[in-house]
């Protein structure tokens, strides 16, 4: 289904949405957006616009058959307004002359209006898809027979279009029937044969009918709604004013801020999720390590308990205590016949041997005997003997 079409031609505004047609006008110096907004109120979805206010500059010019960007570069040198990004421009698709050259109809704003109008419409939720000048509806290649002469008219504004027999276009936007008549006369004078394809758009006026009759031009007047319904809106058409270089706008800032915040939120959420995952894995690892350590420590504590118990048993009954019988055996084997053992006392590792010498003169055998008893790898140590008369005493200590 065709999108609603809004036409701004001179001071006249037309809105065609299906069968619904609304018309209004805007004052010469009035606010264009203020007049347009009530008209488009309630519209949903994209809108196509035909745009040719009274102050739009329109020029038919020779050009190369090339892209819109190159056409802009070509014409911006001659028409300085086109270098201003705030002023929108458009040119119809280049069409060939019969001599092999190409021509286009160039439009550019003299003051910035369309950009602001589009912004105001966007704020109201109206998305403008394509903005074409009405001349784009006249210069359409490959759609039926070519139009040699056309007049588009609304109120006191007239768009005159003529294609001479070589295929070279001229286009004028005028404000009076007299001026229009001069251009028509001039165009017809340049021809050898009368124009075949004639297109007339608007409401016929008496003076306009006289003009056509004077120049023997016959044609059927086409209403604005029919003209708009017949137009084809292609976003890639070089005549599309809305195909403008990118300019940073406030909404772009909003989008950028929102995207940055959303990305930051996503990054934080992702990082937080990852940290949570890491923390849970770490907690699981720590728990596993702790359980393993608890088992190991329990095993070691059991070993400690058993060690303490064994130590207690060993401490209660130590091995390797002194063997006094060895000492008595040694005494029995080494005691000289001149000596008699009379007492042996042992207590807690210490011992004493007491005896007598049969004769006083033989007491000198005691020290050598003590030396013999204490020599070699014995388990005891002896102190020097004490000899009192015939009595002798030897004391000692078992080695630990």
């Amino acid at each position, binding site marked *: 289904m065709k999108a609603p079409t809004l036409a701004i031609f001179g001071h006249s505004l037309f809105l065609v949405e299906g069968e619904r047609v609304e018309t209004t006008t805007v004052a010469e110096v009035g606010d264009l957006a203020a007049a347009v907004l009530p008209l488009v109120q309630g519209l949903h979805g994209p809108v196509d616009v035909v745009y040719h206010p009274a102050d739009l500059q329109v020029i038919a010019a020779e050009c190369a058959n090339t892209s819109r960007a190159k056409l802009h570069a070509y014409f911006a040198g001659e028409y300085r307004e086109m270098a201003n990004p705030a002023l929108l421009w458009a040119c119809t698709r280049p069409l060939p002359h019969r001599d092999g050259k190409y021509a286009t109809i160039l439009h550019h704003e003299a003051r910035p209006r369309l950009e602001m109008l589009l912004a105001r419409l966007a704020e109201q939720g109206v998305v403008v898809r394509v903005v074409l000048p009405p001349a784009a509806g006249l210069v359409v290649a490959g759609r039926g027979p070519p139009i040699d002469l056309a007049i588009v008219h609304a109120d006191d504004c007239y768009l005159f279009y003529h294609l001479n027999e070589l295929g070279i276009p001229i286009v004028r936007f005028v404000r009076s029937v007299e001026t229009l008549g001069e251009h028509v006369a001039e165009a017809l004078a340049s021809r050898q044969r009368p124009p075949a394809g004639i297109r007339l758009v608007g409401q016929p006026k008496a003076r306009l009918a006289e003009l056509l009759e004077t120049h023997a031009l016959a044609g059927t007047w086409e209403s604005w709604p029919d003209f708009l319904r017949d137009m084809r809106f292609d976003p890639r058409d070089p005549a599309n004013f809305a195909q403008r270089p990118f300019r940073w706008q406030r909404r772009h800032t909003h989008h950028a801020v929102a995207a940055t*915040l959303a990305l930051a939120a996503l990054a934080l959420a992702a990082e937080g999720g990852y940290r949570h995952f*890491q923390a849970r894995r770490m907690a699981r690892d720590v728990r596993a390590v702790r359980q393993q350590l608890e088992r190991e420590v329990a095993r070691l*504590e059991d070993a*400690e308990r058993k*060690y303490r118990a064994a130590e207690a048993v060993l401490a209660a009954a130590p091995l390797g205590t002194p063997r*006094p019988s060895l000492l008595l055996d040694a005494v029995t084997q080494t005691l000289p016949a001149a000596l008699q053992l009379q007492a042996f006392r042992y207590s807690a590792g210490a011992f004493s041997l007491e005896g007598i010498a049969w004769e006083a003169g033989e007491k000198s055998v005691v020290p050598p005997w003590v030396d013999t008893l204490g020599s070699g790898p014995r388990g005891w140590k002896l102190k020097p003997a004490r000899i009192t008369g015939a009595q002798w005493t030897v004391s000692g200590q078992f080695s630990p």
Partner: protein
Amino acid sequence: MKQVVLAASMLAAVVVARVIWAAQARPDDPAVRQLQDRQRALAGFPQAQAEAERKVAALRGALWDGSAERFALPAGWSARPLPAEEKPGVRLVRCAFFKDCLLRDYGEFVRVLKSLEEKPSTRIESITLVLNADGRRFSTALITATLPMATPAP
């Protein structure tokens, strides 16, 4: 503008959620550190336990069994039990062994002493062997010994 408010709300919600559900786990868990310290402190015990149990096994072979309380003494010898002491896995039975001995019984005295020392765990507490003035009889022939008896392990 609405999308900025929405994105800012998202960000705020994420920040709040992160504060509320902050990750708590840390690699240096205090309980783990405490267990590791304890593990290091106890690390030597398995070896020490094995060594001690080997010694205990050797000791158990050297302990008197229950029948040793009725120690087989030669005729004329007396054994008087002294207060025993209970230790973990060991009962320390103390006894005084004595006889009214003649000089010729010296060899028997030494044999009794050696038979007591037969078990390496025996601890001879004291020996008193004193000859009378006549030189034929001992006024005292007394051996006090502790005989460790095996009891069930604790």
